[in-house]
Every structure is written in C-alpha cells, then in structure tokens.
C-alpha cells in the first residue's frame, strides 16, 4: 500500500494557482524528493500534506486513509523546516521531547527516545543547551532530531539543508541518506537543488508553476526528461538545446539547426516534419573521439571543475557546452572536432519529448 497518495490537489492564493491538480503516490519507506525552482508550489504542497494549509480541492491519503479532516497533530507526521523553527525558550532535550510530551508518552519512554535520537545524531553533549547557543549545523541536527524522535509514519522535510554551508551540506546529505536506510521511514523532501534531489531521492518529482512535470527515479529523469523544462532544470552543466527543423532525407529523419545538422536514426515518432528541439547533454559530446557526427566548434571559454573541464564553444551561430577530460589541452580560440552520439540526443516537439 502507498504510504502517501495525493489526488487532484489544487490550491489557489487569490488569483495565483500555487498547486494545480497534483496526483502523487509515495510507497512505504520511499525517499521522495519534490524538486523545482522557487515558487513552483513544492513547499505549499508539503504544507498541504502536513495539514497546515487546507487544499481547495483534492484528497490527501495516508496509508490509504483520507486525512483531510484531521488536524496536523492527528496526522502522525513530523516536519523539518528550512528555518529549523526550534522552540527558543526550551533546551535541546525539551525541544526533542516536546512532541512526545504533548502526546502523553510515559516519561521513561521519552527519556529513552531522546537518548536514542541524540546518539543517532551525535548531539548528546548539547542536550542542556538552548537553541541560541548552537551553531547552524547543530540547530539543523536538533531540528532533524525533533522529527526523528517521534518515529512518525511520514517525514516532511522542507529544504532542511539550504541554510548550511556547502561542505556541511554535502556531509549532512550523506548522513541523511544513511539515516533513511537505517530507520526506513517514508520521507517527502522539498528542495530546489538538483544535486540534492538526484543523490537523495528514490523518486524525484519535478515541479513547475504548481504542476508536476515528471516523476521517476533520478536516472530515469536524467536520461529521459519528459520535456524541455525537465531537461534544462536537471543536469549541470545545463543541457544544450537547439531549435530547428525535422525533415526526411533518403527516408531517414534529419534535424537541421542554425549551426549544424544531425541524422536522427533512433527517432521513433509519427511526426514526419516540423519544428523540433534537440537536447544534447554536455557529457554526451566528445572531442576527437570517433563519433557518428563530427562537428567543428570554436572554443570561447573554459571552466575548470576539478574532475573535468567544461568547454563553452560556438557551433555556427549556436552556443555549445561540452565536457572534456581534465588533462585536455584546449585554449580559447582553438577549433576542435566534436563528436555527437545521435543515440543520446533528446528530441522534443512542442516542448514534449518524442
């Protein structure tokens, strides 16, 4: 059975449609990431699941039961906020135990649970401190602990890492992943950071303007983006996207863009000709390697990202970004041969994948 099911959830704020007709299914123990740019409705959706904001339309089901009429406290969920939202007037241990105390859990059990979660997060030494005496990372841990200690049936996490500095974020991300394996809870995680989404999620839900664009495992979304928005939003450096014409030549589909043309042998569509867009991921473009299509590009700028080089080049009138090995000898102004594997080209018609 699904731990969480959303059916046709819609929410308006005045004229603005924050969430539009969202359906979603999250399995028990799944780590589901809601990913999208800011203002896409992902946090609103999370607040609707929590019961903090009522939806205008649709149903939220937990374990197959509608919770629409239940107050947040009766939904058996826990939430970690971007701002942490710790209770500033309570010590760490009282912050952690607050939810259990409110539910009338017996004292010895509370003590045990607080000890367990403090050990799990390595914050045993901080239990007597007040939130203002903690660093950002420590506060983040307490906020996580406050959710974990209740062992709810659903965890909601609203950009919990976005206030940490970059290094800490990477570490906590790994810990979070391990913790998820350890406690096997169902988690809904909201983020605008695609790296977080790809590394953490069993399932990634890409949203924009209140709508779900694509749902699936990270690799699936990366390899077969359903539309041009998902294709550009996922992946760094960004995918190369070119507008052009589809036409048939000698019975084979061809793409003619402003800077180059391609044969799209693997294209399976009824569309014979028309305006299309093709997307090529920077890492699917090689230099000097034998490829089916060889093109000549002029290097304009080179960014070093450690493990590789990202080359920004010109291909006719179009810009082209591709990845080169870190030891590649390239300078701005160089003219290079680039090879594109037509099998890895994404083709879109009217924004949708074909």
């Amino acid at each position, binding site marked *: 059975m699904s731990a969480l099911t959303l059916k046709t959830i819609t929410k308006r704020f005045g004229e603005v449609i924050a969430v539009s007709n969202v359906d979603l299914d999250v399995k028990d123990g799944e780590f589901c990431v809601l990913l999208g740019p800011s203002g896409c409705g992902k946090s609103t959706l999370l607040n609707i699941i929590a019961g903090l904001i009522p939806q205008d339309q649709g149903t939220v089901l937990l374990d197959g039961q509608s919770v629409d009429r239940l*107050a947040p406290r009766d939904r058996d*969920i826990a939430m970690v906020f971007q701002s942490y939202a710790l*209770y*500033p007037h309570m010590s760490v241990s009282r912050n952690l135990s607050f939810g259990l105390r*409110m539910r009338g859990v017996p004292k010895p059990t509370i003590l045990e649970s607080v000890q367990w979660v403090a050990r799990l997060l390595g914050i045993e030494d901080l239990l007597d401190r007040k939130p*203002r005496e903690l660093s*950002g990372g420590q506060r983040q841990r307490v906020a996580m602990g406050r959710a974990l200690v209740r062992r709810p049936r659903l965890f909601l996490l609203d950009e919990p890492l976005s206030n940490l500095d970059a290094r800490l974020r990477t570490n906590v991300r790994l810990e979070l992943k391990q913790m998820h394996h350890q406690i096997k809870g169902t988690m809904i995680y909201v983020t605008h950071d695609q790296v977080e989404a790809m590394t953490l999620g069993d399932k990634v839900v890409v949203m924009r303007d209140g709508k779900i664009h694509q749902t699936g495992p990270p690799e699936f979304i990366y390899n077969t983006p359903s539309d041009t928005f998902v294709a550009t939003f996922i992946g760094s450096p960004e995918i190369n996207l070119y507008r052009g014409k589809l036409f048939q030549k000698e019975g084979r589909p061809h793409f003619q863009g402003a800077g180059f043309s391609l044969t799209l042998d693997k294209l399976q569509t009824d569309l014979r000709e028309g305006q299309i867009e093709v997307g090529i991921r920077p890492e699917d473009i090689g230099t000097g390697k034998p490829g089916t299509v060889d093109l000549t590009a002029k290097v304009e700028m080179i960014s070093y990202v450690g493990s590789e080089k990202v080359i920004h080049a010109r291909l006719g009138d179009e810009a082209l970004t591709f990845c080169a090995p870190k030891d590649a000898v390239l300078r701005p102004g160089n003219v290079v041969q680039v090879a594109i594997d037509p099998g890895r080209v994404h083709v879109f018609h009217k924004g949708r994948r074909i």
Partner: protein
Amino acid sequence: MSREHLETNIIRILRVLGIIFFVVIVAFPFYWMIVSSFRSLEEILMQPANLWLDITKINFRAYDEVLFQHGFVRHISNSTYVSIITVVLSVTLATLGGYAVTRLHFRGQAFMSYSILVIYMFPAIVLVIPLYVVFSHMGLRDSIHVLILVYLAQTLPVALYMLHSYFQNLPVEIEYAGLIDGCSRLGVIWRIIIPLSAPALASVALYTFMIAWNEFLFAFMFLDTPEKFTLSRGVVQLAGSVHLSKQLVMAASVLVTVPILFLFLFFERHLVQGLTSGAMKG
C-alpha cells in the same frame, strides 16, 4: 588641540549639560514632593523654601494621617484591585485577540486589524459625558467594576496593537512545528506564543497598569462614594478639602507615584528583546 578633539569635548560637555537639565526638570519636583511629605506642617510653614531634608527630623505623621484618617488604605486597595483586574483582563483579551487578527483567517480580518486603533482616536473627554449618561441610566455609575470596563475599553486597543505587531514578527514556522508536534491552537498560544512574547506581555501589562492606576477623569466622573475612590481621585479629594495641609497632599502623591516607580524598575528587566534568538537559522 585638534578639531576632532575639540568636537569630542564639546559633545561631552553638551551631554553633561543635557543630563543635568533633564535631571533638574524631572527629578526636582519629585524630590520636593518626597522631602515635603517627610516634614511636619510647622516646618513647612516656617521654612517653605528649605530643600534640605534633615534626616533626624524625618516625620511619618503625614503618612499615618493620610493612610488611616483620610481613608487612603481603602483608596490603595481600590486602585490595586481595579488595576490588577484591568491588567489581567487586558493581557488575556489582547493575547487572544492579537493572535486572532495576526494568524487566523476570517472574514473581516484585515478590517479588524486596521480598525483596532481607530477606537483609540476618540479622546476620553469626548466619551466621558455620553458614558456618564448611559451608566447613570443603567444605574451602574457609582461602581468600581464599571471603571474596570472603561479602563479596559481604553487600554485594549493599544494592547491589541502592540501584541499584534509583536506576534507578526514571531516566525510562523515555530507555530507550525507546535501544531505538528501535537498542540491545538490554544496549546500553541499557551506553550509557544506566550513564553516567546514575555517582553511584549510585560510591556502591555505595565502600560495597562499605569493607565488604570493613574486614571483620573473617569474616576472623578463615575465615583461618588468616598469608600469607592481610587488613589488619584482620593488625592484630588484631599487637595480640595478645607484644611489644606501641604505635607498630606505630598504624602498622598508619593503613595500614588512610588508603586508605579518600583513596578517599572522591576519590569524593566523583563522588557528585553530578543527572546526568539536561536529559533531560526540565525
């Protein structure tokens, strides 16, 4: 001497002069009041301009007379009763009302939150005559409890406004966390909002207490029986009586002023800001 040095010195001198000026303006009448209240009538009559209080000649007769012969024990207890009940009601109602207009969504919420202060725009003198007539007709005039009602009406708008703007600055996520952790709305107010708003609540309590304790106009209009007089009303009664004794009025004035002074000094420590620090990413 450099120019910068000169400027610093001038500012320093001006600062000292300013402090002296305000101390004289503010503290001198107060000092005179206290000194006079500790002297005997003969002393005041013989040396009316003497500002020095001779420690050996301190005299509590005036206090004794004011308290026990002129009914000020009664006035003090009346004022205390009126002020404390007003504070309790005002803080309770303002907390609930302030929370409602800040966080709850209901029809007319915006209108409510903007119109709170409009009530405060009516000067008391405009209200006192109609209220006098209304309460007289209802037979409620000579009553301490009507006074409480009027003080409540007078203080609640400002109290609501103060708490409303304070509540607006409390991060809503903390309340969300409380709601998810198992609190009802009232539970959130009791366990999270009130502890976090302690400084604002202290300010509101102090403000309300001062208004209720010092108020004179309504007490003057509404109260007829001397047993029901509040302190300020009592002082005026005393000052207007035939056998005017300066030291008695001064002692009565000290009795009005000193509780407020100590209350303020006590609460002042609680008026500190920044109780929410540490809740958020910070």
